[in-house]
């Protein structure tokens, strides 16, 4: 803060005194606030040009960009199997899937950009390790069956989370999610089908499938976030119609969905406590290892360093290409301006 007096000559007084202008701004904010509240009450959509509370904007930028980053980092574990996919059909489906994820990243970065944060800024946050992404991607996709388990359980959990987000109050986010969910459901189906084929294949294939499910189950359930009691931001997100169901509600919904699916696969889920509770009308399941979860979130998962290093290498190795593309575009713009001047 400077102690100097403000230079009043710089203030535009053509539209009244400073006091009047401040009053007008406050009136605008009040009208904006009332409009926003009304949209929330009527469960309608907020669009980029609408006034919105700063905290609402920040929450969305954080959530949407984290989601975008998860798509980008999520390309790595499955991308790891493109070169070794065991049939050409599987290779082609996997390539299309990983490419879809890049596409989801694009829609989501675009949705976040409408909130005033540039894609470069978001890239930077991921690059420096400041931004978070879904912790599940810090686990390795060690075998081909992991590609199936990721599709079935990870994409399955993502869909459970994301279907309600199609109704999120922020328009561009909700609309992006509609497209994302359509493609994710292909992915889940493909993952399930990979596991089905493996579990009905040779004993070695079935064992590979069971092993991948054993390793993926816990981290997939943790994708819904910490238990409701430890999730302080959830309440506000629900009041803003961004989040529609609590973490635990969504997790329960997912467990209820995958138990019969696992039976159909002929595979078991690695939880001896998993059983139908007649009274609740839901499956009971064991507590998850939240110490491990928070440890991975803090950067100590098996592959946190590798995932980030891979991302950074891609950005670093591509820097000269992006610079060249920008320089070329600038030259093209200059030459078209020159020719416009010549013909004028």
């Amino acid at each position: 803060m400077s102690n100097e007096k403000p230079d009043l000559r710089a203030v535009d007084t053509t539209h009244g005194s400073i006091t009047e202008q401040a009053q007008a701004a406050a009136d605008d904010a009040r009208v904006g606030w009332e409009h926003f509240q009304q949209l929330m009450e009527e469960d309608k959509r907020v669009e980029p040009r609408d006034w919105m509370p700063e905290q609402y904007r920040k929450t969305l930028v954080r959530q949407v960009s984290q989601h975008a980053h998860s798509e980008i980092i999520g390309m790595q574990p499955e991308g790891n199997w493109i070169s070794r996919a065991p049939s050409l059909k599987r290779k082609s489906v996997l390539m299309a899937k990983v490419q879809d994820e890049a596409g989801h990243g694009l829609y989501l970065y675009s949705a976040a950009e409408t909130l005033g944060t540039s894609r470069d800024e978001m890239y930077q946050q991921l690059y420096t390790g400041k931004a978070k992404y879904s912790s599940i991607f810090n686990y390795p996709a060690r075998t081909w069956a992991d590609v199936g388990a990721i599709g079935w359980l990870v994409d399955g959990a993502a869909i459970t989370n994301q279907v309600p987000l199609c109704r999120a109050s922020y328009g561009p986010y909700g609309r992006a999610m509609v497209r994302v969910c359509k493609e994710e459901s292909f992915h889940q189906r493909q993952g399930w089908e990979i596991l089905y084929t493996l579990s009905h294949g040779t004993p070695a294939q079935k064992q590979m499938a069971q092993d991948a499910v054993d390793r993926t189950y816990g981290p997939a359930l943790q994708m819904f976030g910490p238990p409701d009691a430890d999730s302080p931001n959830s309440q506000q997100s629900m009041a803003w119609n961004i989040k529609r169901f609590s973490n635990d509600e969504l997790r329960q919904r997912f467990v209820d969905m995958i138990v019969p699916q696992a039976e159909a696969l002929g595979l078991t889920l690695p939880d001896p406590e998993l059983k139908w509770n007649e009274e609740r009308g839901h499956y009971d399941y064991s507590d998850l290892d939240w110490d491990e979860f928070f440890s991975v979130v803090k950067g100590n998962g098996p592959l946190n360093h590798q995932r980030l290093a891979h991302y950074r290498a891609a950005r670093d190795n591509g820097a000269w290409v992006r610079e060249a593309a920008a320089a070329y575009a600038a030259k093209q713009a200059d030459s078209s301006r020159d020719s416009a001047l010549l013909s004028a």
Partner: protein
Amino acid sequence: MNSAADFTSQDSATRISVGEAITPESLGASSDPAPEETARYALLLGDDCLILAQRLGHWISRAPELEEDIALGNIALDLLGHARFLLTYAGSAWGKSEDDLAYFRSEEEFRSCRLVEQDNGDFAQTIARQLLFSFYTYELYQRLVDSADTTLAAVADKALKEVDYHQDHAAQWLFRLGGGTEESARRMQAGLEAVWPYLEELFADVEPTAALAQQGIAVLPSSLREPVLHRLRTTIEEAGLRVPEAKGALGADRSGRFSEHRGFILAEMQVLARQHPGATW
């Protein structure tokens, strides 16, 4: 697979149809098995596409920009599609599936050219390889659509539309990198120099291609040299770069006897399938 089908009808977002395998019908082509020589030609064409798809697939998650992850992935997918048509057709001559041919042939049995086997290098080298290969396949398929073999003609017709995009993608990047910064021009030139010695192999009149060309089934490779070189030269010069002077590297016979890359590519591609021979995936 009843339970798999039931899964789609459950109350979830997973309402999709079962994917369809590629069939000759979907191409509007003949479903007769390929004659032996034609099959060997289809195999040669298919191997080029398969190996290049394998190479390009590596870029996904490593490209300079998200849009390029998608673009290179798309091109790889197109090429893999072409490979699958061609290998399926080739395999029909010997009762082999596309996977038998892709995963259970050894190094000496592949017929890929060395151009597609070259390392990705940096982005410029990948673009250089794309430029040469897409210009070549564009000219090739433009002629192959008139093949006396209706299946090859149908594959070429489908592939031509996609390869048209591939050559545009490569040329646009050639212009950007050639006319971007000093570093990008230097790298683009180096990329062209690195792959140029392997261009000549594409024009070698190997068998059975040459004999099939006499029958109007194949395109005579040497007949493509002038049109491909002419377009490459014009485009490279337009990008402000120099046309490399390197002569074609010796051993341009697609035998694999003169390639150190092929073994590594196959080792990686085939490893899982070979660990579980006879398994279904």
